[in-house]
């Protein structure tokens, strides 16, 4: 029985034998993207989970050319690699970065913004697991409201993280980037399509993919894909694109699934009370009103 998505991908494995935790969503995103981009992808991974689990000499888990960048330097190293390879006469390659939420929205945002502003011909993929997981689950700029992390403990005074996620997708779009998209490893076909599309566009491409971390989210390793699907189904994340100056919504749940059910499956949200959940639902509804108004739906 042919699977049309699988048929499109390289049968080769480019990220293999790595030491990511069982059920790691980030490693799924990296694996899937590289199977789209193929042998001539040059991947740049900053300090973080994916580099920590994939590059321990002599255990080197990428079969394509890959390099670790500084934590802040994913985009700037991509820029240099793209320029350097071009200078050496290469044209048939894709410089692709895989940075986590902290590496993208916090320490790496300056370099990312610079690369987009220069319109460097790179793909930047943010695998968002919503906290600094590699260092032990500390809050990042993409940790959602209410989440318990080791630096936003949930107690009787403060119920975890007090601030919402930065809107990296629209920050990237605000640069007038040729292509930006949101995705989730729970909808892998959609993600694969977006990576494929990005690979055919000249200039900077930004893809923000939700990639759950069983360890940091407090779920079972086999729940990664389900929860990544559910975050879209309950409306707390959305699948969209930005291209030619316009936003497009790719997937519109008929009815949202239960936000409470989504939250309560995860250890990091167990402490939330009804008021917290109401706050989260209200902010979801506000976001969707904005999407309805400003995003086309195709």
């Amino acid at each position, binding site marked *: 029985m042919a699977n049309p998505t699988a048929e499109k991908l390289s049968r080769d*494995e480019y990220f293999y034998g790595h030491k990511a935790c069982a059920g790691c969503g980030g490693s799924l995103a990296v694996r899937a993207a590289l199977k789209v981009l193929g042998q001539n992808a040059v991947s740049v991974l900053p300090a973080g989970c994916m580099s920590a689990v994939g590059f321990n000499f002599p255990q*080197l888990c990428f079969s394509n*050319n890959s390099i670790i960048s500084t934590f802040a330097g994913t985009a700037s190293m991509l820029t240099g690699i793209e320029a350097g390879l071009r200078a050496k006469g290469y044209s048939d390659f894709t410089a692709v970065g895989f940075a986590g939420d902290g590496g993208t929205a916090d320490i790496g945002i300056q370099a990312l913004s610079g690369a987009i502003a220069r319109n460097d011909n790179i793909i930047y993929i943010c695998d968002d697991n919503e906290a600094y997981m590699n260092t032990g689950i500390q809050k990042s700029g993409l940790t959602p409201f209410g989440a318990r992390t080791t630096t936003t403990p949930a107690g009787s005074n403060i119920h975890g993280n007090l601030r919402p996620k930065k809107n990296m997708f629209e920050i990237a779009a605000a640069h007038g980037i040729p292509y930006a998209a949101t995705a989730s490893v729970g909808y892998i076909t959609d993600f694969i399509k977006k990576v494929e599309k990005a690979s055919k566009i000249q200039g900077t491409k930004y893809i923000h993919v939700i990639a759950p971390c069983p360890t940091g989210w407090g779920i079972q390793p086999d729940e990664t894909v389900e929860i990544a699907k559910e975050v879209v189904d309950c409306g707390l994340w959305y699948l969209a694109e930005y291209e030619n100056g316009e936003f497009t919504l790719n997937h519109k749940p008929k009815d949202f699934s239960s936000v409470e059910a989504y939250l309560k499956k995860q250890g990091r949200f167990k402490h939330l009370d009804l008021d917290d959940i109401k706050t989260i639902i209200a902010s979801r509804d506000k976001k969707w009103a904005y999407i309805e108004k400003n995003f086309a739906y195709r």
Partner: protein
Amino acid sequence: MKPYLREQKAFSFDDVPENTSFEAGYLVTVNSGWRSIRPVIDTGRCVGCEQCYLYCPDGVISIQNGKAVIDYDFCKGCGICAKICKIGAIGMEAEHK
């Protein structure tokens, strides 16, 4: 093609490169010891739909002769494949040591 296990596992002074660049996809250890449970394919039920192949974070599932096959050297036993398989062709069984 994929990263694979190599003969040389230990690196003496002379074997260590001068710089931090080395052959891509060089593996010296397996991940099988991580598992407490292992996925087992019911080849009678498997229809080769490849959903498990698409969603495996470790890329250890391939389709051979129309059926899913697992590389137990590198499978960590996360169980995503068993959950993804809507026709119940993958079961998780305890590892017997």
